[in-house]
């Protein structure tokens, strides 16, 4: 489903005397359809860099990211034109970052409903139902549904972030520390939701701080040094 081949990323900082930072070097791995790959390695090894190169938040410096798209067939995400990347992000590829980025003063419920409404062509009522179902599963108290996430605790924000990213059932899901800042009960509900997504066929790549947890949810782990 996804084959990363010799992926490298360098940052050239023109404003710091052309300083060069090599964020990851010659990374290669393969994720089969429906699989769940964990990325491990010390802080600064380039785990997030690899995810961001796949999502194309970073422009890979060299190498290829072959992806078997439902819409386009086999494509190289590393060199795909911007418009096609947007299309893949809209229809197939989701990303859970460590931070929540939302318009201020939009309610938690609206934030989670938005991607469902924008993509799946469902009614407002159905989108609302699914969003409420997800928020409940993620143990967000009901009185927060119509509140603004900017005022939430770190753990609550992170769960809104996860609900937002998984609500539309992406085909490929990239997870950057989705369970960092969560208590154990919330971690369990996140893992349960991820497990259900996998059963429905979602392929995943994830970074987890907790090695035991990573070993328990993924099929295999790739180490980056």
């Amino acid at each position, binding site marked *: 489903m996804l084959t990363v081949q010799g992926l490298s990323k360098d940052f050239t900082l*023109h*404003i710091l005397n052309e300083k060069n930072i090599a964020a990851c070097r010659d990374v290669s791995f393969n994720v089969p359809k429906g699989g769940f790959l964990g990325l491990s390695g010390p802080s600064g090894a380039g785990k997030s860099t690899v995810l*961001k190169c796949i999502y194309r*938040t*970073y422009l890979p410096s060299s190498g290829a990211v072959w992806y078997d798209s439902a819409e386009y067939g086999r494509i190289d995400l590393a060199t795909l034109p911007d*418009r096609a990347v*947007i299309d893949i992000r809209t229809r197939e590829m989701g990303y859970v970052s460590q931070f929540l980025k*939302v318009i201020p*003063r939009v309610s938690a419920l609206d934030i989670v409903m938005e991607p469902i409404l924008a993509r799946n062509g469902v009614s407002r009522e159905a989108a609302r139902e699914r969003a409420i179902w997800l928020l409940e599963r993620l143990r967000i108290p009901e009185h927060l549904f119509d509140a603004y996430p900017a005022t939430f605790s770190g753990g609550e924000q992170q769960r809104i972030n996860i609900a937002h990213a998984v609500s539309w059932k992406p085909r490929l899901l990239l997870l950057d520390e989705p369970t960092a800042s969560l208590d154990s009960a919330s971690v369990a509900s996140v893992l349960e939701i991820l497990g259900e997504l996998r059963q429905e066929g979602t392929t995943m790549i994830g970074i987890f701080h907790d090695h035991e947890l990573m070993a328990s949810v993924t099929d295999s782990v790739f180490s980056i040094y």
Partner: protein
Amino acid sequence: MEPLIRIRGLSKRFGNGCERCLSSTGPEYETNRCAHCGSVVACNDVSFNLYKNEALGIVGESGSGKSTLVRLLHFEWDASDGSVELHSDAVLDALPELFEHGCMYSRNLLGLSPFQKRQVRNALMGIVYQNPFLGLRMNVSSGGNIAERLLGAGWRNIGAMRRRAAELLEKTEIPLERMDEPPKNFSGGMQQRVQIAKALSNNPLILFLDEVTTGLDLSVQARVLDLIRTLQSEFKLSLLVVSHDLGVINLLCQRTMVMKYGRVVEAGLTDQILQDPQHKYTQLLVASQL
């Protein structure tokens, strides 16, 4: 999907110009004023596509040419060079005379007569300026401001125009009992929302937003941004969002172009521009963000 609008080589020069204007201006010379003849190269060779229901951001400092670009596309100023073409799907029914038989894209809009340009603008475009004084008549009622635009688009029935105005003001959250008040009585945020209502009155396909949240306080800014997002998805609008505020661009736009001294120095996905900027100027811009 084919672009809704194709822009190629769009340029604007103020002054007589000389052979050395282009080779002595731009980011590498840190000026847009030709040292030899004094002409100003406000924007040069700008090419991009705008797709249906897409929000494209244009960032850059004052004088980078971003507002010039909007004024050229809105036909307020005449371009020195370049072409602007519309996809036939969007406008063939409304303006069949723009299309050669069987062509997917229109003739170059920049070559149309002033009358035809006005027609295209009335049929397709809306604009919201940073300064509401540019977009609104401050002494005419808010409803009247919208009616004026509808008259330009060919509406004649007063009752229908009034209903339309009320509908738009409601969408932009202006209390209906204030419909007959002139915008000069309103706060800055309300004036901006009346401007948005006016810009939407002719059901445009393309909305130009020129620094629309600059100068608004933060609470009002959030409300205007949310309104723009909602309206974009409801009306399937294409937005060209000009701003020097990277936060605004980040929330509204999937793709972004960065301009400096009249040139596009970088274009890409917005998150890539913000997290992995390639050009020296973009790196400086991102590193300077609060």
